[in-house]
């Protein structure tokens, strides 16, 4: 792993309305240009961790944060979310709430306009993201007429015009159909592959996670209980299941075979399963 882009040390966090800590002593380091997928059951603290890294908690969302978060050298506790402008971009679950204007161009220009960048720079950034994500066909459409997946794609593009070095994705496909989810996930893969962004994604799609993630962290009850490469995490099928995460189908099959006495390696990816099962 290269130099760390995001470092979280002994992080405790809670909302103003929470009776107890939602995050309980989270430690995390994400290498620059790498991708970490957070997994875990609903309510385990994935979104809260992302909000804290983005500086939204407690600066926008009332609450309390203890511990240390450093993102690309910026101390989040001191700078708040405003100090992360141009450093962190966050995409949320609900595509309907993230596309707020009446034209795709306005939507893409919104964040750099809010940052007060010169007009020419705003236009340059919009042109860049349109080309990078092949959005030309959407430019003349009313965003409200787009599908959920297309809206989420525009939401991601809108965040990218801030030129963030770290992209946080809070279950970006959880409200999308299969086609929309595929569109979004392919875009995330492209961003990782071609633009070298550091990506932290809370995502339930385990088969996708094992294909694209450099690291996987399993969260349970506000803490990271497992962390490692997809192979390291998902080869421990029983542990993963105990924490409420479904392991990849290939790993489940191999684990069942091992339980029945067959000596097989536990694959986590489909192509490895073909090798292991001699298909």
């Amino acid at each position: 792993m290269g130099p760390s882009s995001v470092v979280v040390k002994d992080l405790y966090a809670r909302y103003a309305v929470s009776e107890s800590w939602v995050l309980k002593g989270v430690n995390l380091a994400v290498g620059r240009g790498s991708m970490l997928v957070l997994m875990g059951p609903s309510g385990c603290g994935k979104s809260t961790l992302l909000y804290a890294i983005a500086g939204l908690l407690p600066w926008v969302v009332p609450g309390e944060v203890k511990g240390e978060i450093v993102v690309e050298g910026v101390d989040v506790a001191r700078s708040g979310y405003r100090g992360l402008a141009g450093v962190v971009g966050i995409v949320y679950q609900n595509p309907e709430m993230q596309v707020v204007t009446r034209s795709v161009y306005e939507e893409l220009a919104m964040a750099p306009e809010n940052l007060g960048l010169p007009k020419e720079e705003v236009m340059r950034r919009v042109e860049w993201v349109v080309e990078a994500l092949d959005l030309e066909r959407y430019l003349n459409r009313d965003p409200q007429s787009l599908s959920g997946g297309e809206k989420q794609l525009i939401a991601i593009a809108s965040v990218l015009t801030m030129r963030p070095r770290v992209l946080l994705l809070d279950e970006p496909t959880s409200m999308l159909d299969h086609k929309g989810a595929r569109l979004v996930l392919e875009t995330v893969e492209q961003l990782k592959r071609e633009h070298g962004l550091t990506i932290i994604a809370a995502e339930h799609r385990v088969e996708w996670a094992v294909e694209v993630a450099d690291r996987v962290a399993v969260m349970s009850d506000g803490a990271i209980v497992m962390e490692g490469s997809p192979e390291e995490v998902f080869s421990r099928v029983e542990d993963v299941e105990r924490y409420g995460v479904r392991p990849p189908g290939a790993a489940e099959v191999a684990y069942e075979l091992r339980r029945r006495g067959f000596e097989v390696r536990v694959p986590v990816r489909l192509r490895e399963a073909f090798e292991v099962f001699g298909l």
Partner: protein
Amino acid sequence: MEALSLGGLYVERKTPFHELDPRAKIAWALLVLAASVATQFDGLKALPVFASTLAALSLSGLGAGLALLLIVNASAFLAAVTLVWAGAYSSQGVLLLALGPLRLTDVGLKVAFGKFFLIMNPVLAFAALFASTRPYHLMWALEKLGAPPKVALTFTLALNLLPSTVKAVREVTEAQVARGLALDRGSVVQRLRNYVPIIVPMIAKLLSDVWDLSMVLASRYAGYARRTYVFEPRWSARDTVFTVLSLLLYGGVAAWGLAPWW
């Protein structure tokens, strides 16, 4: 699911009214308001203002049909206003109609219509303004007129909560009726009570939507700095002509309304 959009009341059209600089339209709407205030005691004098708002609605591509719809929906309000002001002015002017205790005089009728137009004319004018001005340009115009960026954004958001609220009411009502809620049964008190299962989830939904929207706007750094606008309208000779004509028309109407000898 409908989005809580910043596009709310705006209707995309290519009309002369859409093409006007938003500052000219804001000035026009304020002049309509001023003229309506000045003519509030004489509905006859408010008629030119009413006619001009209908013309504006037509020029904005929305058509006078929208005005008609608003007036029909406001007919109960007109009836109530007429009763109140007819009662207040029952001893002045020529008696037109006597129905039991109700004595409708020409003065009472003029005042009633004046008060009705005091509400209707600005409603129609601002409807034309908001329907023909992109929220983006409305924010720009408010900032140009000196409003702080956050105030301009908040105003636009609040404005666009109106259609979102209507949608939320419709969605929640349909959901509750599907679950067996009967809104048309029982006494008046019972019927009012029947609306509680609509009002409570509707407020919860709106709060949730607004919360999500505020998170999105915060993470896109709304209010971070003095905002840049890529698309800035340019004041043209057409805007000057429109503003001067508006000043002449509404200034004249206001003077007519305020002059006691006319």
